[in-house]
């Protein structure tokens, strides 16, 4: 069946129903973007239509008053560091769990389940004390390291699945030629799972970029805040300046939405993999 055939009545119905539901679901995002161009007054008079004048000034006001530049930078630092750390460390661990023998292998693998099943709020308070004792409280390191640690389980499990799906022929051949395990990992295994690493990097980027609770509790300096916390504060302070809050929302979500539509295949592949194991 190709996409150019005439549609059957059933397919028209499918298109109609699907289209209606999807439009309804997507509408709030459109409404958010449109509203960010309006004045407060227009937003209530004309909540659905296009803005009469496209007011770009809301964006500059939100950017300045909300300090969005700094928030962005912190979010980028935290996300980039935590994601890189997670994916590298998890790939090495998944490689070991899939290919190597070492004492405690089954036991350690099971232990990782804890990080998959338990919700992060469970450790929020003692983690606060540990970070304090390590002198990491109120630094971006607190977010990078805890964010990364809490992403490890999922990443290792999925990566482990990928490794298991690849036959170890090439690695065994290299082993016979006398390559060290480190060489095999670096030159053969990593290149093979490279696309999967990328996929997992994207999945972790979405999760860590959006992380709220740790960021709320472990960092308090204005200058070290990440976007989600900054947004909540902004919302609290300017909650009656609708247009500006919508502009801030748009600025903070549009890039990640754009990234998603750009890399849609990877995101979807990665996120659906989270449920396959």
């Amino acid at each position, binding site marked *: 069946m190709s996409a150019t055939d005439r549609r059957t009545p059933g397919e028209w119905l499918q298109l109609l129903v699907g289209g209606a539901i999807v439009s309804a679901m997507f509408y709030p995002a459109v409404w958010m973007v449109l509203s960010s161009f309006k004045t407060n007054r227009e937003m209530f008079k004309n909540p659905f239509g296009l803005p009469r004048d496209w007011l770009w000034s809301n964006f500059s006001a939100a950017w300045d008053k909300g300090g969005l530049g700094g928030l962005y930078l912190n979010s980028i630092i935290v996300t980039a560091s935590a994601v890189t750390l997670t994916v590298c460390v998890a790939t090495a661990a998944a490689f070991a769990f899939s290919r190597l023998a070492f004492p405690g292998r089954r036991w350690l693998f099971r232990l990782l389940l804890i990080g998959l099943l338990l919700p992060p709020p469970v450790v929020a308070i003692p983690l606060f004390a540990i970070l304090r004792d390590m002198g990491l409280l109120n630094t971006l390191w607190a977010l990078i390291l805890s964010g990364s640690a809490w992403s490890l389980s999922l990443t290792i499990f999925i990566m482990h699945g990928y490794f298991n799906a690849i036959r170890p022929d090439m690695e065994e051949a290299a082993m016979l030629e006398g390559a060290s395990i480190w060489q095999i990992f670096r030159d053969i295994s990593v290149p093979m799972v490279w696309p999967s690493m990328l996929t997992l990097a994207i999945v972790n980027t979405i999760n860590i970029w959006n992380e709220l609770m740790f960021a709320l*509790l472990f960092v*308090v300096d204005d200058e070290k805040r990440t976007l989600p916390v900054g947004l909540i504060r902004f919302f609290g302070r300017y909650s*009656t300046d609708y247009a500006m809050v919508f502009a801030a929302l748009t600025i903070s979500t549009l890039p990640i939405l754009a990234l998603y539509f750009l890399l849609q295949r990877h995101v979807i592949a990665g996120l659906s993999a989270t449920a396959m194991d």
Partner: protein
Amino acid sequence: MTRFFRLAASCITALMAASAAVADTEIRITHAMSSGAGKEAFDKIVAGFEAANPGVTVKQIVFDDDVYSDTGLITQLQSNEVPDIYFQWAGYPVQRDVEAGYAADLSAAMADSWQAGFIDSAFTAGSGTMVDGKIYMVPISLDITNTIWFNTAIFAENNLTAPTTWEEFIAAIKVLAAAGETPIVTGNNELWPLGNWASHVAARVVSADNFHAAFAQEKSFADAGFLRPLALMQELHEAGAFNKDMQGLGADPAMAAFFQEAAAMHPIGSWLVGSEGDLAVEGFTYSQFDTPVIDPTQAAPKSVIATMTGFVQHAKAAHPAEATSFLKYLTSVEAAVIWAESGAISPVKGVAEKANMSDQMKGVAAMLANADAMVPPPDTTYPVPVAEAYYQAAAYAASGEKSAADALKWLDETVAAMPKP
């Protein structure tokens, strides 16, 4: 392998170096004056201090009120880079900080002429700035934590004037409700805005001893006579006093709603004045009256609810000498006048006469001067969970969620489950 580790190690050291702070003599101050006229005034004072003390810079770490008291301060006090000076509410918080070893004893520095510059009531046993006879807090403001602000235009339209008795107050509410106005807007999702007012109402109808006994967990709220204040909250609800979404609304949006003429009255502290410029619609006119007299036979029928706020120097401040000199500068008459003109009542002697204060602030100052007693807010005087429980009971009664009797029952059960101090 080793190459990998060397690379990783150098990356980490590079990142660490990048995040390490550069510091000369930088004093770090953390507070919750995040916007409005107060922020501007404080910035001005800081600039004045920096100009007068070359080589010393002041770094401000600023939070919203709620964040500051929830996680902002505690996180900083425990981090490895403590602030030299931090904002605090007088009373229980200061006492707790002293016990935990965060607060520096400033008695010696105060002993010279510094202390003499303050009004006498700034440093007394009950002022909350001292613990065991030693001074730990430098007060900068006397805050009325609740008074009733009203929109004079809406009052005039309905032929109303500021009520002087509770009966007049309820009658005014009924007139406003019948006219389709929202009589009182309160943003009580954090429970303290209404809770603070309800505490003031309680202090008006419950004896001081009973008030203390209940919050100090020495007596049940029922035995201490708290049915009466909760019944008054219920009475307000039945008169149609409050906005429907009071329990979901934040304190700031509620204040904004008042300044946008969406309600006739707004019970909140004297800091409202500082937000007028940011929030009020054009031509907005307002004034305030203290909670009307409820029971003239009580010991202090015209009390106000107020607290002092100020700064504590951290016991482990990196630059204690500079920090103290900043605090002295902050409470010099010159700086205190700037501070008072932003909408604060300064505890520094002579400021009230010199400062050019708005009519609103003059009204607040007059109210403070005429008060027959000062009631401290429970959440800065007693353990927070007990205060919060009373606040919630008040909200139950005021929102019609529970009757006054049920709210009282709930309150005593909740407090009974808490550990005794």
